């Protein structure tokens, strides 16, 4: 048994990871001209810098404390049919696919492998809201775009962010100007519907200016049974006193790997609630970085992962309190069945001057089967004294006495188990602010807990076809 | 005993006390009443020496000394006791240790010998009876896990232990049911002598059914706007604080 705290790589692992890194370095070098011809000078400059960083950082290994519990070498060493698509537009998704979240009245935008799919490249609204292709916006609105792009997702810290910034070509851009309340929720659906194995990079940028308010839903769906690896980066700027409700739903399949890094930069008195629902995925790794960069900012982050088979779901969160009087709360849960593994790696950092911070961090996990496994590492790093910070983590089973109590009242064992699991999950689902989405997720989770495929009807039909 | 002259105090540059005048003599009971936010608790805190509040003007003499120059614990050892509206919980510190430190520190400042362990425990036993404080409470950490009523009883128990010259009881009646109120009030009455004085701060008249004040002051918007005998409390109960407001505004 390895006794040190850091995980050391063995020699053969070191070689493997070197080969993998070389593969992605070559990928960039060989396609540099295509990538550059597709983007603005500004983006290409950042691209070059990011590539430089990737050469140093590489794909994170288990010897990296932040990735201690997730082995990425498998998914990155696989051979994909396509690594970079020159263009992948106008798949006509709008007409062939309709998200069937009942009664959800949202503005819907589609991505496939990171490429923007709606026919209207940039949609502008009367109230000044701009939504559209990241690539198109970078050319048409360079002022807004250049001010924020790559400002929050630091390429020099994480090899995956560096890789995405080197390779990403498109994604969704949302701009909500000052004092504007977006009328409808904005729904982004990233669909994987290829009959090839695909590696793709998705890049999103959402700018919510001062006093603005918006609900955003980001769905990830894999509709064909191919092997997918998605490496996405989403940057979100939240202005003073702005409000964002952010929802992420992950509905992939056992052969998909979904690595998703979200960077939320919050100004004074801003308010962000984010809920991540991970329903299915062979490998899911969510990285969430929140910087509370103004007094009175408030962040609540919730997540639940339901994993079975050999799925692996890892939530990493880093909440950085840079200013005083900010509050943050994190609650992440896992229900793990079969041979699934779950991980939580949460970090709260309170800077010296971030006095009067309230920070809560909680991770609760249920292991349903004997081969399920959970690793958790909730951390507090605190440099200010006038703070209230606490964290907790539990790993256990469903409450036996509650089970007994219910069964004594005539509720069957299976039903009782369902009720308890559902109650466990509902603490998170209840946080979803968009009612129609919440109802739908409730449905999905119940189906998922029953062992069914937790897909919406339209999505599941595609899979069955 | 206590003379307050034109006392002004503020917190975060917001003026709360806007010129208080008050004189308390030995043996007297003063009631200070007033609506929420009038400055009652601030006055209590300033008398005890809480440095969150800044005294911007005025003077306080206590037993002929300038009170404002004394630290919190000096004031305590000179006989000023504040019954807290919200008694503070101190996890891990037992009531016995806490009280022993308080009693002996105060004795030390007065140049007296510390009490022996047995004398101290005997004193505890005696004083507990005054407020019918359950024995088990003194074995727990200070105020931790106490009910609202137990916390208030505990304040009076500490007052009994420390035998102050001037007790300032800040909303000691709030949150008490009628039985607990009677016990607490009886405790306060038992501790009264011709040499000590009590300032009772309260929002309601009902406490004054048990503790009969010599003077009732009405504090409104940082000033004492009316002073009279105990009948004022009854009048106030009947007519409500709007009556005062209408007289002032």
């Amino acid at each position, binding site marked *: 048994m390895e*006794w*040190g*705290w*850091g995980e050391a790589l063995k020699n053969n692992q070191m070689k493997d990871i070197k080969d993998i890194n070389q593969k992605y370095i070559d990928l960039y070098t060989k396609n540099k001209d295509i990538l550059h011809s597709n983007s603005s000078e500004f983006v290409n400059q950042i691209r070059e810098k990011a590539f430089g960083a990737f050469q140093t950082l590489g794909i994170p290994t288990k010897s990296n404390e932040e990735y201690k519990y997730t082995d990425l070498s498998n998914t990155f060493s696989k051979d994909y049919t396509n690594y970079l698509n020159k263009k992948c537009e106008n798949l006509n998704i709008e007409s062939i696919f309709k998200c069937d979240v009942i009664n959800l009245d949202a503005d819907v935008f589609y991505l496939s492998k990171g490429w923007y799919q709606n026919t209207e490249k940039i949609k502008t609204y009367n109230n000044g809201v701009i939504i559209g292709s990241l690539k198109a916006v970078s050319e048409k609105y360079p002022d807004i775009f250049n001010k924020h792009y790559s400002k929050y997702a630091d390429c020099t810290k994480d090899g995956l962010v560096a890789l995405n910034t080197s390779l990403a070509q498109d994604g969704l851009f949302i701009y909500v100007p000052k004092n504007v309340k977006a009328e409808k929720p904005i729904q982004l659906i990233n669909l994987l519907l290829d009959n090839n194995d695909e590696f793709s990079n998705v890049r999103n940028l959402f700018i919510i200016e001062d006093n603005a308010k918006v609900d955003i839903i980001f769905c990830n769906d894999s509709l064909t049974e191919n092997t997918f690896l998605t490496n996405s980066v989403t940057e979100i700027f939240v202005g003073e006193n702005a409000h964002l409700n952010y929802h992420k739903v992950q509905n992939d399949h056992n052969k998909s790997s979904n690595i998703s890094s979200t960077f939320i930069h919050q100004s004074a008195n801003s308010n962000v609630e984010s809920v991540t629902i991970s329903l299915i995925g062979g490998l899911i790794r969510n990285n969430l970085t929140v910087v509370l960069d103004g007094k009175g900012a408030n962040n609540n982050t919730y997540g639940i992962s339901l994993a079975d088979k050999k799925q692996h779901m890892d939530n990493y969160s880093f909440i950085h309190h840079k200013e005083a009087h900010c509050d943050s709360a994190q609650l992440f849960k896992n229900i793990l069945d079969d041979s699934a593994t779950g991980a939580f790696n949460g970090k709260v950092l309170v800077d*010296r001057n971030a006095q009067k911070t309230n920070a809560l961090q909680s991770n609760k*996990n249920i*292991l*349903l*089967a*004997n081969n*399920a*496994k959970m*690793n*958790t*590492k*909730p*951390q*507090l*790093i*605190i*440099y*200010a*004294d006038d*703070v*209230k*910070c*606490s*964290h907790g*983590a*539990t*790993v*256990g*089973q469903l409450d036996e006495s509650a089970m007994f109590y219910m069964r004594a009242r005539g509720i069957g064992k299976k039903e009782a188990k369902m009720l308890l699991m559902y109650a466990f999950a509902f603490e998170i689902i209840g946080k979803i602010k968009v009612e129609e989405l919440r109802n739908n997720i409730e449905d999905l989770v119940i189906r998922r807990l029953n062992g069914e495929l937790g897909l919406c009807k339209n999505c599941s039909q595609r899979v069955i076809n | 005993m206590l003379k307050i002259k034109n006392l002004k105090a503020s917190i975060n540059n917001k003026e709360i006390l806007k010129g208080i005048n008050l004189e308390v003599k030995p043996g007297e009971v003063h009631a200070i009443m007033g609506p929420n936010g009038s400055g009652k608790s601030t006055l209590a805190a300033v008398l005890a020496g809480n*440095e*969150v509040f800044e005294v911007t003007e005025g003077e306080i003499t206590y037993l002929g000394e300038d009170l404002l120059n004394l*630290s*919190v*614990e000096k*004031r*305590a*050892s000179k006989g000023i*006791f504040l019954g*807290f509206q919200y*008694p*503070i919980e*101190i996890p*891990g*510190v*037992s009531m016995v*240790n*806490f*009280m022993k*430190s*308080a009693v002996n*520190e*105060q004795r030390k*400042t007065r140049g007296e010998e510390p009490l022996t362990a047995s004398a101290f425990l005997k004193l505890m036993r005696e004083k507990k009876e005054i407020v019918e404080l359950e024995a088990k409470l003194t074995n727990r*950490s*200070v105020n931790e896990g106490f009910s609202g009523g137990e916390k208030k009883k505990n304040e009076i128990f*500490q007052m009994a232990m420390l035998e102050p010259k001037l007790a300032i009881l800040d909303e000691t009646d709030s949150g008490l049911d009628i039985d607990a109120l009677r016990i607490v009030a009886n405790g306060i009455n038992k501790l009264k002598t011709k040499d000590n004085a009590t300032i009772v701060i309260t929002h309601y008249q009902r406490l004054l059914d048990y503790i009969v004040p010599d003077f009732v002051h009405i504090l409104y918007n940082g000033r004492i706007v009316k002073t009279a005998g105990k009948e004022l409390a009854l009048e106030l109960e009947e007519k409500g604080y709007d009556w005062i407001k209408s007289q002032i505004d």
Partner: protein
Amino acid sequence: MKENEDKILDEVTNSDYKYGFVTDVDNDDIGKGLNEDVVRIISSKKNEPEWLLDYRLKAFRHWKEMEFKNWAHLDIPEINYQDIIYYSAPKPTKVLDSMDDVDPELRKTFEKLGIPLDEQKMLSGVAVDAVIDSVSVKTTFKENLAERGIIFCSFSEAVRDYPDLVKKYLGSVVPYTDNFFAALNSAVFSDGSFCYIPKGVRSPMELSTYFRINAANTGQFERTLIVADDDSFVSYLEGCTAPQRDENQLHAAIVEIIVNKGAEVKYSTVQNWYPGNKEGLGGIFNFVTKRGIIGESGKLSWSQVETGSAITWKYPSCILKGDNAIAEFYSVAVTNNYQQADTGTKMIHIGKNTSSTIISKGISAGKSDNSYRGLVKVLKGAENARNFSQCDSLLLGDKCGAHTYPYIEVDNNTAVVEHEATTSKIGEDQIFYCNQRGIPTEEAIGLIVNGYAKDVLSKLPMEFAVEAQKLLQISLEGSVG
């Protein structure tokens, strides 16, 4: 109030380290530097058997290939291992064997430290093995203990008198490959304590090792090996101090504990190595590997009060190997000025129905950094394993840091693991409440800190608890800012 508190803080942090004196005795040292010859010299000076020299050499060769990895929340200056004296012993006035002839200077040293070596003068409840620099100078009450079959002696004597026992257990819990400092210690360790409690015997007194670094430029590398045979019981105490010097000194020790079926070992430490001065100059670098392995229905309990050292790197751990094994870890770690501590535990659940408890109280003041790092690992076969961890941090002042790094790895679905942690400061309202009752601020802080640490202090043996409380008071009183 602020000014007043600063004043108190000042007084406290200026207060002298009580144990900072140097004893003037002749030392037999071998000069600075480390190579295979040095390892051989140490071994030959101790007249060691061949197998032990081999063990040392293997460890040394392994250490040479190792690289120190700093994964802790510690700023560790580069250590020049060639600039350290690896063996230093006070020159005995006579032959080391005659225990009654301890150098009067050394006798005085231990008296000054409150550890009289005369059995008549001692509390009858404690047997002491006194270790100065690299060697054990005196073990008391040996004969009384021997009557019950308890072996309590210096490590060197154990190698000479009980080679089979030492050979069987040395490195069985902490192999020399374990980590960088364990490898170093295994190569150059000079002395330490050995203790064996036979089957069914309860030690009638507490056994204690008192470690003292005296000579300059030396490292201290001692080893403690405790074997508690079936159904036995022992309570073991460890204390440490060092002179005040401007240069840092290295202390890299190993403690191995074997708890057999049904046995119980209670191991308590008050670590008060010289912490450096208030500018952060000097102090001991304390890199210690402590670990125990627990057999069926055995129990191992670590209690530690860590107030000293410039750097503390220490994770007393438990391997719960047998079914129904119980492990406990209680810790109070205090850092002030420029001290750094990264300390915690590892609980490895292997057996069924094993349970572990972790209570850690960190207190940071001054410009110090204090981290809790802990691992709870439940292996696949550890049915019904239970762990409860509570790790609190208290901050005094706004220039220090308090950090919590728990790792929880659960590979069995019948396990229940709970971890809780809070970080808070001493509330101004708490101090005000105490002040109002007439308790001065420094007294109030002492009360509150001791209250905060009570869960751990109450686990220490009586006389240790009193010492620990005083230490807490000295290290901290009034350091709220």
